[in-house]
């Protein structure tokens, strides 16, 4: 079978799967699977026979992990979902992140309340990763508006970067055995100390294989006008690290606002990075006119990409995992909105088209060629 472009779309009402030929002319939609149940994370795992995973966060009957072995034509539950040890005292409230680990079957899973789990058998059994789940800071983290969640897992050889809202950035350099808070330069707007050791509300972290040590972060910005203790905190929202996340510096200058949720790096160019700025108060598009902003020089300057997007009266939010990019020769950008639209930004975001206009509110979008 010719390679297909597969898009997994996690929504408030289940997971959808769209696919298309590599020309991306037209997409076919299937779903919803796990109907009526929110899906906050998906993973298209192409390490062996492709699998599509989705977390299914059932408010009545608890968390499930769904798996499709036929590219999204059907989904079945894995044999178990992550669960805290019975004597731990915490109960799983949501699954926020599913990522591929080592080998062909290892999976990592970030959950709410903030903790990390690992499966070595494709999601049938899970073990809690104690180095972060039982970290000395863990009982001091506070929930953000979305809950106290470990939502981002970035693996880089022996290094593992985690983002926790609100816990901040945690770094392991021993494959996840131990973690330390690594937030030098990462600001917080909701604490008197503008640069605490931990407790920041990091929204997303990404890296690129071609730029060892470099990371980009979308942090919880929007604090330029704060006049209370600690003073204003402009431009703490979009950051970059060049030392494997040990320290961070702002790259937010030039953006209309430093608040946002997703951040995406171009698969073929580590200097090209995308954000989708939002008004800090409403978390919607500035002025009702949505736009993706792109830097082609690692964050030194930014340009606005909005061709094909509505020019006014548009007030959606794009959540932290709802923007991504495919890896075709001329990559396209994708983002899903809380108003249920899935947009494609062809030619790296130069021209936007709406692929699906009326899906349920979209939590996350993943894409892969399989």
């Amino acid at each position, binding site marked *: 079978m010719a390679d297909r472009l597969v898009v997994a779309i996690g929504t408030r009402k289940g997971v959808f799967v769209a696919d298309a030929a590599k020309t991306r002319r037209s997409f076919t939609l299937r779903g919803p699977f796990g109907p009526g149940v929110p899906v906050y994370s998906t993973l298209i795992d192409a390490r062996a026979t492709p699998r599509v995973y989705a977390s299914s966060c059932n*408010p*009545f*009957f*608890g968390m499930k992990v769904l798996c499709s072995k036929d590219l999204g034509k059907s989904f079945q*539950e894995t044999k178990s979902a992550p*669960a805290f*040890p019975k004597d*731990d005292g915490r*109960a799983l409230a949501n699954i926020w992140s599913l990522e591929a680990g080592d080998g062909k079957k290892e999976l990592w899973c970030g959950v709410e309340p903030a903790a990390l789990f690992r499966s070595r058998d494709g999601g049938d059994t899970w073990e809690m990763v104690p180095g972060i789940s039982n970290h000395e800071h863990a009982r001091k983290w506070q929930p953000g508006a979305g809950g106290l969640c470990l939502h981002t897992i970035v693996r880089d050889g022996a290094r593992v970067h985690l983002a926790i809202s609100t816990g901040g950035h945690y770094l392991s350099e021993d494959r996840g055995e131990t973690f330390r808070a690594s937030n030098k330069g990462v600001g917080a707007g909701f604490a008197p100390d503008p640069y605490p050791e931990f407790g920041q509300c990091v929204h997303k972290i990404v890296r690129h294989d071609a730029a060892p040590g470099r990371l980009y972060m979308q942090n919880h910005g929007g604090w330029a006008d704060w006049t209370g203790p600690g003073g204003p905190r402009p431009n703490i929202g979009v950051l970059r690290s060049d030392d494997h996340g040990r320290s961070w510096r702002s790259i937010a200058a030039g953006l209309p606002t430093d608040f946002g949720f997703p951040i995406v790096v171009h698969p073929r160019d580590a200097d090209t990075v995308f954000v989708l700025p939002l008004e800090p108060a409403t978390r919607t598009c500035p002025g009702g006119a949505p736009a993706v902003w792109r830097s082609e020089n690692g964050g030194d300057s930014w340009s606005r990409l909005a061709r094909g997007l509505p020019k006014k009266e548009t007030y959606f939010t794009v959540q932290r995992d709802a923007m991504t990019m495919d890896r075709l020769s001329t990559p396209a950008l994708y983002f899903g909105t809380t108003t249920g639209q899935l947009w494609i930004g062809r030619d790296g975001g130069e021209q936007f088209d709406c692929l699906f206009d009326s899906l349920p509110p979209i939590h996350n979008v993943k894409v892969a060629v399989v």
Partner: protein
Amino acid sequence: MVTAPTVTIHLPGPLRAYSGGVTRLETAARTVKAALEDLERNRSALYRNLCDETGALRRHLNVFVNSNNIRDLQGVDTILAAGDVLTFLPAVSGG
């Protein structure tokens, strides 16, 4: 000799997948808590849908003994008698 009561457990349709395809079970448990412990021992997949890993009933699940919500009785310590019907139902919610 005291005979253990026979109590009927009614499950909502979505839980059929975890109960061997049935929506009705029987238990000889004398309290709601004992009925849950019985399920934990013998039908663990079903139990995980009803209780979280701390053993607490899931927040958005209502449990009735006959027509009374156990919140208005003695919670999981509510005593069961022969012929009682123990019903698990997801809470009404919208959106």
